[in-house]
């Protein structure tokens, strides 16, 4: 592998987006090329800086209250059974734009009406039978074939956002099935990313539980609250200490495990407080 090739895929390699064979080629190149290896180190260094970023975000209880007050009058449109199935079929197989079920039905009736009218007033040698709704539904493109959808997607770039996102969801599920995940790990996740993800999960859980505990705190007596706060403070020190070690050695499994165990203990204590 040459350096210019390495540099063009360096970020994708760091982001864990390359296939195994490409990863191996990159890794072999880094062994022989100090310059490219340095670029990778710089990228990792940047990643560590961003790891230290903690946005000052708090989910206040009022936020749910505001969401709830707005949705209390809304109800998600309930499934209308056959109409929804028809809509889904048309969207999937004929790439029809996303419109409401009734509009879809209306469009179909208009289409039938026009067809009947056309057939009635224009003569053909072999007069074809009236196209019925039932017959219409029998003629379908092959369902869920990726190449058909890709062709539709190519021509439909100008169509609405919702159509695009619907097709892309499908394409993703097809492409994900075709990837063989030998380790049952999310494709494209490096150990660093997974550890970061794990840490974010714990932080999210801790934030959520902390809010719940704060709401319930008045139910606990003062000595209990004090004891639990001391426990939490001690765990927070463990988290801080182990986190420092992991920041220095992000690929050390033992250090990572100590840090995640510390987070896990905090989650356990908070759950215990919530449960009281």
């Amino acid at each position, binding site marked *: 592998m040459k350096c210019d090739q390495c540099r063009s895929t360096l*970020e994708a390699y760091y982001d*864990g987006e390359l296939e195994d064979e490409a990863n191996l080629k990159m890794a072999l190149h880094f062994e022989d090329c100090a310059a490219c290896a340095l670029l990778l180190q710089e990228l990792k260094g940047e990643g560590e800086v961003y790891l230290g970023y903690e946005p000052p975000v708090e989910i206040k209880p009022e936020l749910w209250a505001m969401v709830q007050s707005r949705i209390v009058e809304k109800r998600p449109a309930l499934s209308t059974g056959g109409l929804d199935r028809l809509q889904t079929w048309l969207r999937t197989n004929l790439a029809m734009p996303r419109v409401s079920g009734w509009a879809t039905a209306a469009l179909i009736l208009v289409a039938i009406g026009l067809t009947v009218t056309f057939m009635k007033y224009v003569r053909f040698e072999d007069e074809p039978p009236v196209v019925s709704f039932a017959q219409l539904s029998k003629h379908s493109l092959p369902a869920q074939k990726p190449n058909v959808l890709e062709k539709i997607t190519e021509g439909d770039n100008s169509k609405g956002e919702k159509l695009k996102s619907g097709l*892309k969801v499908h394409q993703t599920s097809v492409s994900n099935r075709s990837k063989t995940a030998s380790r049952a790990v999310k494709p494209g996740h490096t150990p660093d990313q997974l550890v970061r993800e794990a840490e974010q999960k714990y932080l999210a859980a801790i934030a959520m539980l902390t809010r719940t505990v704060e709401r319930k705190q008045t139910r606990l007596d003062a000595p209990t609250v004090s004891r639990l706060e001391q426990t939490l403070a001690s765990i927070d020190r463990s988290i801080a200490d182990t986190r420092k070690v992991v920041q220095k050695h992000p690929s050390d499994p033992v250090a990572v495990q100590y840090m995640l165990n510390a987070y896990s203990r905090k989650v356990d204590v908070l759950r215990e407080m919530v449960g009281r």
Partner: protein
Amino acid sequence: MIDRLALNSDRINGREDLHTGVVLNSAPELIAQARTGDHEAFRLLFERYARPVMVFTYNLVGRHDVAEELTQETFVRAYSNLKELRDETKFSTWLFGIGRNVVREWIRSRVRSGGIDLAGAVADQEQSLELSPADQLAGKELNRAIIVALQSLDEDRRVVFALKIFNGSSYQEIVEITGFTLAKVKTELHRARADMRHRLRGYLENR
């Protein structure tokens, strides 16, 4: 409805506190329940995803008050459009897609009314809230520098960067959330990294 499912079990000898074969709600069921108008189920979904969505919107707009509004709008729209979600395992990606659209509409409306307030973003940083110990560990200086640098990025670049670096999304997930092509995602990410590197060079050089 949630409570009814929670206690779908047999009582032992009529005793209220003893049950057998307890079967309780699972996450996929919450989405199905929320689709039928069950607010409690939707609240549980909110509890799980509110923070990541708000972090995402905050990273894009740089202001806590605005991020809160946009997060609220995201969940209201998600509730209204739950029937559009075909694959429950893709709920997170779908939700972030809504969040991204909500942010984009807000930015457009701000541009029309006279520009994004960068100073507001900085001021917000100076009044950042006390939160978990992780927040204290991070250091406010770095937080502030990153937020200011983020806000100075071009909008598309900011979205892609925030999703990749702070949300840990894969390229494909970013494609689904933003509607960009894969090539655009890679290009914007590369340029975003370069821009951030330039703006944060003081922090990066000290490592």
